[in-house]
């Protein structure tokens, strides 16, 4: 577990090389570099199937949205992608407003998010 003074990321590796990243807290300009580094680290390690568990995520700024989209596109080139799990309604509405829902699969059950990589 990597702890930050403003957000916390917990990583868990599931079967099939699926990496689950649970983000708790918020991502804004004060910790965006750390967020990018954490997400990029997984990609660099070759984990292209990533589930972002957002059940304890309170706020995502626009840069974080851009980073998630960029990494998703990168991972998708390697037969992977980023799946979003348990997004709060308020954050999901921002995703939808930007048309990001065309890109991302959003789940409320971890099992289904995992299964989506096997389809």
């Amino acid at each position, binding site marked *: 577990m990597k702890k930050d003074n*403003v957000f916390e990321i917990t990583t868990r590796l599931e079967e099939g090389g699926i990496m689950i990243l649970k983000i708790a807290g*918020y991502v*804004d*300009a*004060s910790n965006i570099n750390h967020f*990018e580094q954490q997400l990029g680290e997984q990609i660099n390690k070759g984990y292209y199937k990533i589930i972002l568990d957002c059940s304890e995520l309170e*706020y995502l*700024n*626009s*840069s974080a*949205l*851009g*980073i998630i*989209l*960029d990494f998703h596109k990168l991972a998708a080139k390697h037969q992977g992608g980023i799946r979003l799990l348990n997004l709060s*309604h*308020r*954050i999901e*509405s*921002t995703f939808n*407003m*930007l*048309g*990001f829902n*065309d*890109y991302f699969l959003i789940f409320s059950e971890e099992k289904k998010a995992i299964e989506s990589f096997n389809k």
Partner: protein
Amino acid sequence: MAENSTRYSQTKKGNEKDSPRNSSKYFHLRFIVPGDVQELAAIRDRVEKQSASMNLSDEEAYQIVSAVDETCTNIIKHAYQGKEGNIEISLKVDSERFEIEVADKGIYFDPTLNIPQEIDQEKIGRQKGGLGLFIIKKTMDDLNYRFTMSGENKLHLVKYFRSE
């Protein structure tokens, strides 16, 4: 005397009986914070608390918080460019609207000149920027910028309450 990191004033007005929205909750709140990314969480928290006192949907409250966060981030990044300086935030609410004014004394920076008309997901990414401004434009009803005679950038945002 050195200025405190936050200056705070709040006035309430209105008559509780004359509005579908509880007008005893009308307020004008003004506070000054250092233009520092470490202050963003506290700024969001304060705006969220004020939004929560109104009959806003959770989505609308988040949009207001988000607009203020993105505005302040732009100021820190583009107007102050790493230099020290304060940000003055004014929140004004009446029966019709939620008004926000954000002012700084950094270099001239008119965010309204940089708003993308459309979001192209193929091109968007962190480095390209513009996503924050697009969110502000999309969620706020009015967005006006002015550079004052005293050399301040002032961004005025308005969100009208939906009729009930």
